[in-house]
């Protein structure tokens, strides 16, 4: 066995030596035989001739010896590759075009796959990732697919589900100020159960994780830093453990630093135990009265060994069903409140998945087009190689051998294309990561790793086989005619049909891509045109949240905000200044039930709901929200004045045609009532594609319980210049107040449009690419067809046909193909664009206008692509054409 391997290797690497040896060995025999004949009395020349005769076919014997060696396959493969190399080198133009086309197709697929690999396929980088599940609550009846868990609910799960979980941990995110050497850092703080990191399977690289003792009332507050925060703000100080920092007016000791892994569910700078969070601690006191107090938790757990997710999900659902039934006032039956145990990785990537799959489909289609193109090119080239193929057949190559040779060529091309594609993909991967970052947090793991390389290899090989098979199978060599006149004597009809078929497919696929891109572009355009109900120009927003310990209640906050507004309004260049809790494009709508005074309130569980916003008087001026009826807020609406409220236009429907002004509403179950003094315009607060909902506005001074904290300023000039003014004014009043998220509304709006914009752009680029490749293919095929038919055109023109008649003929034949492809593509688009309906805004997936425009554009461009080579047909001189062969 081993001898065979060494033998085979020897044949491959020392081919020449082996050949020499064989030759010498056989020659020795010949000479000896001749000598023998001489000894028997034959004259020398006759002896030689006799010896050779009895040898019987010198070359054939050699061939048989080579066969016997058993290294046939690898030897032939090596020979094929060498030959393929030589042939391709002799047509560098073809090779270059083919490699580039394939490189683009393969590269696009590699790039998208590397993203899919990093985001969707790779397991989470946590030790216990396969046993982690997320407790997800939902109220589908109220249109809320995701409801955060409250403290009491978390306790319920923890107590009742321990059969399936060996640990259930909670998480929520806060923003606190960490005073680092005097500078306040607004840090994203993850507030977690003490065994949080242990459940995830993360070990700190410095210090220790939290212990149960850290999470008891009265324990000294401790902190764990994230790797990035430690690296950037503390310069990876190795002595960080043990240092103390002020947070929320209490000293916190650093006890550990996390390794450099992505954070789940959100990126945080520091982590603290649950009871160190003052809001959570305060809320926990209230859970007896309010089941849903502090409904801000993310809960996930580790399954016990052997427990399946499905079983745990059933158990969780049962527990939820129980407490929902026991508390119908809190969990209204029609809300369909339920819970399940969801796969963690799926949750993280849910937003990105459909988009990525669409992209994968798109790049797959582009590769198909590229293959069709190169197949056509190869076919055209084969027509010119008839003579060579005929010769090889005469020399003994079977059809299988020829096909193998052609496949080797095509695979060589596609492998080279694959390398080009890898280069192309690695160049564009950073851009792609930026794009995907809008959809998911898992972008840190996107890279070109062995999995991606393997994928590229497979795709390149399959591509080579696909576009090599089509022309290869069509070669039927007619020996006699081929050798005689050496011109394309292969079945030209068969070739023509294949080429036409490929063109039709290419056009059809391009149409599907163009229609998809068109729909997304129109959708994006419409989104951009949406009137949000407020003006986004010249408005700056900034977050200034009061430190909880310094501002323990609304009164204290007002002492800060009211002077802040006054000072800002006095600044030159400031047209209006306001403080609110609701900046457009941020946040999510709340739904607070409200009552209208004087209306029957039979069923407190079925009250209508509205979004409650806090607004200082100039809020509406700052945002340009029109006042429709009544009056806005003023300085008169302070704490001691009668409680007032504003409603928006959408909310007017609850009053039918009657005037709502003067009515009183309550948003806190009748404890306090506000009089409606005016109606303002609707705003699309939470995104341009969201409908306006019922909104109630409460004046800042009268909103004691609210956590306002966002400053809005309308400026006369460039809003950016106001950033410094806002910062200074705030810090004059309170040097420790951090100022964050300073954005112009125009920027926020642009960010909210980012996803649809990027999606439309990306798909448009792909569609353009596809169209370009297809057009190139059309031009190429028609050009070769024209050059083949020069003789025919020559005859036609000699017989009196006008030039433009010839052009029309060629054009007609080309456009016939395009039309066929167009029809096919339209049908395909009809079904394919359903996939996009989730991404489309105010446009149907079968929008006739888009389909029509794409058709017109395609026909126009294709006509040009056909016309150029057609025109060349007419430049042929009839005499020249007739003479040529």
């Amino acid at each position, binding site marked *: 066995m081993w001898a*065979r391997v060494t033998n085979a290797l020897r044949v491959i690497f020392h081919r020449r030596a082996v050949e020499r040896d064989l030759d*010498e*060995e*056989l020659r*020795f025999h010949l*000479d000896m035989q001749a000598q023998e004949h001489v000894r028997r009395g034959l004259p020398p020349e006759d002896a030689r001739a006799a010896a050779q005769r009895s040898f019987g076919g010198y070359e054939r*014997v050699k061939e*048989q*010896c080579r066969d*016997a060696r058993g290294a046939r396959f690898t030897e032939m493969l090596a020979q094929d590759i060498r030959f393929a190399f030589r042939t391709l080198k002799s047509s560098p133009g073809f090779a270059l075009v083919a490699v580039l086309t394939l490189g683009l197709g393969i590269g696009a697929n590699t790039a998208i796959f590397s993203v899919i690999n990093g985001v969707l396929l790779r397991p989470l980088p946590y030790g216990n990732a396969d046993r982690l599940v997320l407790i997800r609550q939902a109220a589908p009846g109220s249109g809320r697919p995701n409801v955060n868990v409250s403290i009491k609910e978390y306790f319920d799960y923890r107590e009742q589900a321990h059969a399936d979980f060996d640990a259930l941990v909670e998480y929520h995110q806060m923003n606190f100020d960490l005073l680092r050497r005097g500078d306040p850092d607004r840090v994203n703080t993850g507030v977690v159960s003490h065994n949080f990191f242990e459940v995830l399977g993360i070990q700190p690289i410095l210090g220790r994780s939290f212990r149960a003792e850290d999470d008891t009332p009265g324990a000294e507050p401790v902190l764990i830093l994230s790797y990035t925060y430690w690296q950037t703000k503390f310069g990876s100080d190795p002595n960080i453990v043990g240092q103390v920092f002020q947070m929320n007016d209490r000293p916190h000791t650093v006890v550990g630093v996390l390794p450099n892994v992505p954070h789940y569910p959100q990126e945080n700078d520091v982590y603290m135990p649950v009871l160190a969070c003052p809001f959570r601690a305060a809320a926990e006191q209230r859970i007896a009265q309010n089941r849903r107090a502090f409904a801000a938790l993310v809960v996930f757990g580790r399954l016990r060994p052997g427990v399946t997710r499905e079983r745990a999900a059933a158990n969780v659902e049962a527990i939820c069903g129980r407490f929902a039934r026991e508390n119908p006032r809190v969990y209204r039956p029609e809300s369909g409140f339920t819970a399940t145990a969801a796969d963690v990785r799926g949750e993280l990537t849910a937003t990105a998945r459909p988009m990525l799959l669409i992209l994968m489909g798109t790049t797959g289609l582009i590769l198909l087009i590229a293959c069709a193109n190169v197949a056509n090119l190869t076919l055209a080239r084969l027509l010119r190689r008839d003579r060579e193929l005929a010769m090889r057949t005469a020399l003994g190559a079977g059809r299988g051998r020829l096909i193998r040779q052609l496949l080797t060529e095509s695979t060589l091309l596609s492998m080279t294309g694959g390398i080009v594609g890898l280069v192309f993909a690695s160049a564009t991967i950073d851009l792609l990561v930026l794009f995907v970052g809008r959809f998911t947090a898992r972008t840190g793991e996107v890279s070109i790793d062995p999995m991606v390389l393997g994928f590229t290899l497979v795709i390149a090989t399959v591509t080579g086989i696909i576009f090599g098979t089509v022309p290869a199978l069509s070669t039927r060599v007619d020996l006699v005619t081929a050798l005689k006149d050496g011109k394309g004597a292969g079945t030209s009809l068969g070739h023509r049909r294949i080429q036409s078929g490929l063109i039709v497919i290419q056009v059809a696929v391009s149409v599907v891509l163009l229609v998809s891109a068109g729909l997304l572009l129109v959708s994006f355009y419409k989104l951009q045109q949406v009137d949000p109900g407020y003006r986004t120009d010249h408005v700056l927003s900034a977050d200034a949240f009061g430190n909880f310990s310094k501002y323990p209640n609304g009164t204290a906050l007002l002492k800060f905000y009211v002077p802040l507004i006054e000072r800002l309004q006095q600044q030159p260049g400031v047209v209006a200044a306001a403080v609110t809790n609701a900046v457009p494009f941020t946040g999510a709508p709340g739904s607070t039930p409200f009552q209208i005074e004087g209306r029957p309130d039979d069923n407190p569980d079925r009250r209508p709901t509205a979004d409650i916003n806090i607004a200082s008087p100039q809020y509406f001026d700052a945002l340009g929200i029109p006042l429709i009826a009544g009056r806005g807020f003023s300085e008169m609406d302070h704490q001691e004045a009668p409680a007032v409220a504003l409603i928006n236009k959408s909310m007017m429907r609850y009053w039918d045609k009657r005037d709502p002004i003067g009515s009183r509403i309550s948003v806190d179950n009748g404890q306090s009532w506000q009089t409606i003094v005016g109606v303002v315009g609707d705003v699309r607060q939470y995104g341009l594609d969201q409908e306006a909902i019922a909104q109630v506005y409460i004046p800042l001074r009268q909103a004691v319980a609210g956590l306002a904290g966002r400053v809005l300023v309308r400026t006369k000039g460039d809003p950016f210049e106001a950033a410094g003014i806002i910062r200074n004014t705030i810090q004059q009043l309170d040097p420790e107040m951090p100022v964050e998220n300073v954005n112009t509304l125009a920027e926020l709006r642009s960010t909210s449009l980012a996803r649809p914009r990027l999606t439309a752009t990306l798909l448009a680029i792909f569609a353009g690419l596809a169209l370009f490749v297809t057009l190139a293919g059309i031009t190429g095929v028609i050009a070769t067809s024209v050059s083949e038919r020069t003789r025919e055109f020559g005859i036609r023109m000699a017989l009196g046909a006008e030039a433009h008649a010839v052009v029309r003929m060629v054009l007609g034949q080309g456009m016939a193909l395009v039309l066929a492809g167009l029809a096919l593509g339209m049908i395909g688009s009809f079904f394919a664009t359903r996939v996009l309906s989730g991404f489309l805004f105010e446009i149907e997936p079968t929008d006739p206008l888009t389909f029509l425009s794409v058709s017109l554009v395609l026909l126009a461009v294709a006509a040009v692509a056909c016309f150029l080579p057609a025109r060349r047909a007419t430049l042929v001189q009839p005499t020249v054409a007739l003479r040529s062969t």
Partner: protein
Amino acid sequence: MNKLKTDLLQGTLDLMVLRILEAGPNHGWGISQRIQQISQDVLRINQGSLYPALHRLEAQGWIDAEWGSSDNNRRAKYYQLTRAGRRQLAQETENWTRLADAITRVLETA
């Protein structure tokens, strides 16, 4: 004399070559001469079958090749039996004997 068909005697040819080489290393010409000699000219091995057979046996590892100098001081490729080849020879001889015996018995008795 008869030129025996290759396909009929391929296995037998291998057997004979191995046997000849058991007596000592030899080159292709020598082997064919020896077979012709011993069989008293009945078996004249076609070079077209001998050399492929030799190369096949070498590829399979039953024989080893080495370049040496022949009687008349010419470079020639000498083959010799390997240990595995020796085992193979014993095996093949046994098979052949059994086969030949069986055929002979049929011819005699039937």
